[in-house]
């Protein structure tokens, strides 16, 4: 997996645009809209080396501060954009003696964690080019064995990364561990196209066109064939939702994007219920 991404890192953005005709940008925009983060959210973005999700997160909060929106639709994934929805209020934290001394409690922050150094370097240089110097940290680490304390993040995201992990269950349990109680897990990933007619079309496209694109644009057939195959062997929407529940998350929901080509899964680390 590491080798694949070493090759892929440089042309990652280009290939994403080509393969999905730019739609991956819309999927990611939608993903952040579903999250609807508020100021003060501490986000851990896993496997997001090039920063796509991290930058959108920061931009969303920035635009919220400039021009707050009122959300009135009802989404399938529950959202709550009241202030403090994803941040544990400081008086609660003091009660529980959670240590928040490191970060200013009221500022948003995203820590990007990726197993691949090249991807992180791309992300870091993109941040510098965009003039983003604060509110973001870059860490190289393994999603199955995260270098963070328990109960330390308000939100955890993993976009198009989990299908590449050897032990998805470990990734999920680690995600659960590092989230604060009440914290939200969100995953954006390729999923199953249920409509049979569309699926045939999608399969032909994936197996016949994408590796060719990989060869032409990045001189790399094999890595893109790997990517296509990894999509096929990943559990479908329902199965993955069950795995998320298995890890301890509650209120697990999913939403299909573009007929199921991609899907957003969401779950919460619910506070313990005292019987």
């Amino acid at each position: 997996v590491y080798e694949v991404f070493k090759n892929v890192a440089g042309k990652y953005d280009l290939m994403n645009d080509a393969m999905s005709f730019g739609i991956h940008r819309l999927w990611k925009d939608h993903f952040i809209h579903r999250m609807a983060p508020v100021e003060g959210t501490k986000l851990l973005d896993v496997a997001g080396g090039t920063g796509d999700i991290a930058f959108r997160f920061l931009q969303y909060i920035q635009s919220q501060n400039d021009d707050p929106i009122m959300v009135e639709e009802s989404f399938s994934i529950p959202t709550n954009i009241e202030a403090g929805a994803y941040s544990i209020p400081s008086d609660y934290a003091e009660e529980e003696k959670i240590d928040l001394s490191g970060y200013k409690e009221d500022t948003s922050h995203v820590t990007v964690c990726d197993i691949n150094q090249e991807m992180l370097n791309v992300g870091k240089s993109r941040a510098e080019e965009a003039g983003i110097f604060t509110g973001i940290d870059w860490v190289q680490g393994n999603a199955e064995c995260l270098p963070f304390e328990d109960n330390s993040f308000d939100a955890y995201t993993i976009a198009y990364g989990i299908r590449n992990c050897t032990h998805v269950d470990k990734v999920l349990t680690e995600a659960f561990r590092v989230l604060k109680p009440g914290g939200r897990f969100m995953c954006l990933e390729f999923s199953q196209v249920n409509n049979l007619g569309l699926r045939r079309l999608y399969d032909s496209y994936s197996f016949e066109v994408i590796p060719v694109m990989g060869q032409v644009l990045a001189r790399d057939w094999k890595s893109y064939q790997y990517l296509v195959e990894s999509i096929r062997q990943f559990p479908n929407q329902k199965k993955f939702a069950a795995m998320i529940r298995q890890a301890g998350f509650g209120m697990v929901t999913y939403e299909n994007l573009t007929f199921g080509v991609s899907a957003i899964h969401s779950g919460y680390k619910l506070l313990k219920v005292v019987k």
Partner: protein
Amino acid sequence: ARFSTSLFYNTPFDETILEVLVCPVSKKPLRYDKEKNELVCEESGIAYPIVDGIPNLVPQDARIINKDTVDRNESPPKTQNK
């Protein structure tokens, strides 16, 4: 004009990140060794490298600290703000 040919020539390591980072193996806090540019977990006996200002906390990439060569005059655990 700002430019960078290859990777970050010598990006300083941002120590504020130490507030959230722990050793992935022991989940205990890390000590920043400025000289060697590493993050050390005493308990696990391993040191993680910092590359281009980005700490690498993948356990497989860590260096096992040789017990014989433990320095006596190491930097103190709490780093001071400049």
